[in-house]
């Protein structure tokens, strides 16, 4: 049973289009009251379909959706206490900013005085008071998006749905809007559900993230857990970058498993990794690029170390991405540019030692 902390309950929801396409495949999850929730996945993974089912534009083929304890089966979009910010913003082109924001209140028959007051508050919330009389074609993309936000928030929905809200903005503005959306969400206290294909967006804004692929939710976790402890190869690879190797479990003893990585075993031997569950057979072994350390001399006190050749160095300003090879094994290491000339010795063709802490290694069983 959903407790009072749950605002949206999605239970065994399946959505099929026609007879061959299953967009959402048996998804169950709870969204908590007041949280910033992200649905993250590549295009075509079913995240937008799921969001549209919450808004009422699609109805589930199977399963049920409860919003604040109320079954949404057969409830029209205009009768749901959720509002949506569309990817195209869908700001009404023939109405002024004020009329756009007032629209939802007007069709609900709200008295005129109250409309004006609430529209004023909503515009102040998104810092658009001075634009109230403009038409949408006199606004920038970022301003149009604020109109879309104000228009949805003025209805005081229980949940605000955002469909790829930042994808049309340029990089600088996107970062600024990420911060602003988080600030907005904390100040209004409304549950936000955002759909995005951008992992940075999800990681930086959301309290919890559901990673989807092929209509399934693969992992649901807070950002840090998702990044540090992905539960499968897809999540590990989709969130951030990953050095991923195939290996076999060759033994286990007291909470640790011994894994032989084919491409590394002749150099570093078997790895002993902490792992709670049961693991056998083929597994994935993964290490984040920023957790690798480079040194010119052999780091003798590091248990996992090997000598590699630098194949390529890509300069990004804040980071250097170093591509390394040791026999068949390929690594990427991300080095923070902590001071000028910090990586002067890191040049193509040189040999360096890389090492990492055993505890930072990930074991992926699926």
């Amino acid at each position, binding site marked *: 049973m959903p407790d009072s902390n749950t605002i949206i309950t999605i239970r065994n929801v399946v959505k099929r289009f026609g007879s061959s396409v299953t967009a959402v495949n048996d998804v169950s999850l709870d969204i908590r009251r007041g949280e910033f929730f992200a649905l993250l996945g590549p295009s075509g993974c079913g995240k937008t379909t799921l969001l549209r089912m919450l808004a009422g*534009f699609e109805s589930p083929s199977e399963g049920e959706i409860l919003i604040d304890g109320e079954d949404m089966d057969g409830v029209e979009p*205009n009768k749901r206490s959720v509002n949506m910010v569309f990817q195209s913003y*869908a700001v*009404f082109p*023939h109405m002024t900013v004020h009329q756009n924001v007032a629209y939802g209140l007007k069709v609900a028959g709200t008295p005129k005085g109250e409309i004006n007051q609430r529209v004023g508050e909503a515009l102040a919330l998104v810092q658009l008071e001075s634009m109230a009389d403009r038409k*949408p074609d006199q606004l920038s993309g970022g301003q149009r998006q604020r109109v879309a936000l104000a228009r949805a928030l003025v*209805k005081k929905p229980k949940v605000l749905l955002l469909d790829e809200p930042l994808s049309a903005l340029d990089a600088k503005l996107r970062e600024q809007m990420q911060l602003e959306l988080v600030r907005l969400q904390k100040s209004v206290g409304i549950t936000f559900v955002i759909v995005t294909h951008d992992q940075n967006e999800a990681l930086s804004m959301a309290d919890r993230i559901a990673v989807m692929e092929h209509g399934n939710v693969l992992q649901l976790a807070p950002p840090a857990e998702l990044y540090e402890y992905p539960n499968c190869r897809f999540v590990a690879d989709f969130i951030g970058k990953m050095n991923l190797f195939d290996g076999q479990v060759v033994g286990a003893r007291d909470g640790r498993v011994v894994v032989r990585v084919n491409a590394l075993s002749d150099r570093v031997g078997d790895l002993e990794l902490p792992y709670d569950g049961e693991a056998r057979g083929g597994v994935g072994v993964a290490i984040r690029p920023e957790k690798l350390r480079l040194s010119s001399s052999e780091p003798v006190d590091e248990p996992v170390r090997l000598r590699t050749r630098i194949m390529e160095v890509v300069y990004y300003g804040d980071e250097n991405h170093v591509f390394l090879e040791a026999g068949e094994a390929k690594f990427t290491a991300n080095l923070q540019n902590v001071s000028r000339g910090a990586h002067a010795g890191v040049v193509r063709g040189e040999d360096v030692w890389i090492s990492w802490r055993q505890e930072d290694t990930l074991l992926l069983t699926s």
Partner: protein
Amino acid sequence: MAKDRANPLDYSRKTWMRLCMGFTFVFLYFPIVSLIAFSFNDSKRNITWQGFTLRYYEQAFNNSQLHEAFLNSLIIAGISTTVSTILGAMLGLALYRFRFPAQGPYEGLVHLPIVIPEICMAVAMVAFFATVNMPLGLTTITVSHIAFSIPFVAVVIRARMAGFDRSLEEASRDLGASQWQTFWNVTYPYMKPGLVAGALLAFTLSLDDFVITFFTSGPGSTTFPIKIYSMVRFSVTPEVNAASTVLIVITLALTVAALIIQSRSQGPTHA
């Protein structure tokens, strides 16, 4: 780079191109210009220029039969425009919005009245009215005009709706509006330029239609073009020229209005 390839604008500087353009203009517009000019000619015949007069306009305005015919045309055009705009808009919207089996063939059939020769439409109409025992008169003319105007309106509306962002309708529903409110608050304002253009098109089509009107008219239901035709059979007097000029001016004004409205709506339509 190809140096000898002419810039598109260079063609207008070539003599043969200019001659071609000149001939086209003469062939297209000389008859019309001479028609208008001789409507001001102070002579009973359209052969030599005798001097300027507005006498024949006066005569045309005082011709009660011409009056009646013009009134008939206005009534027919008014009713047929109203009905065909509503039906055509519904048709255009349905074609834009819904996917249904055999949609391709259906769209083709809808456009058929635009393509098939008018004389065939006319004969078909007469045959139809005979089968249903409808006496020929203003009603049958109006019904025929509605029938051939609908596809034109539908095509204009369909083209207009092609640029419509459907998430606007979803946004309206999401904000609490019913389907009906959404149509009137969001869809209709977007359609409006198309509706005006379609209506003006239907109006001019009805006002100057001859073939179908001629076949479906009965005693006492003479329209303006038909009245002019019967006057010409008598003799081409400047009075006919004057009446025709009035019709030209009206259709021209409406067509220009339709074009302006359409081009305005093709500007920044939605953000």
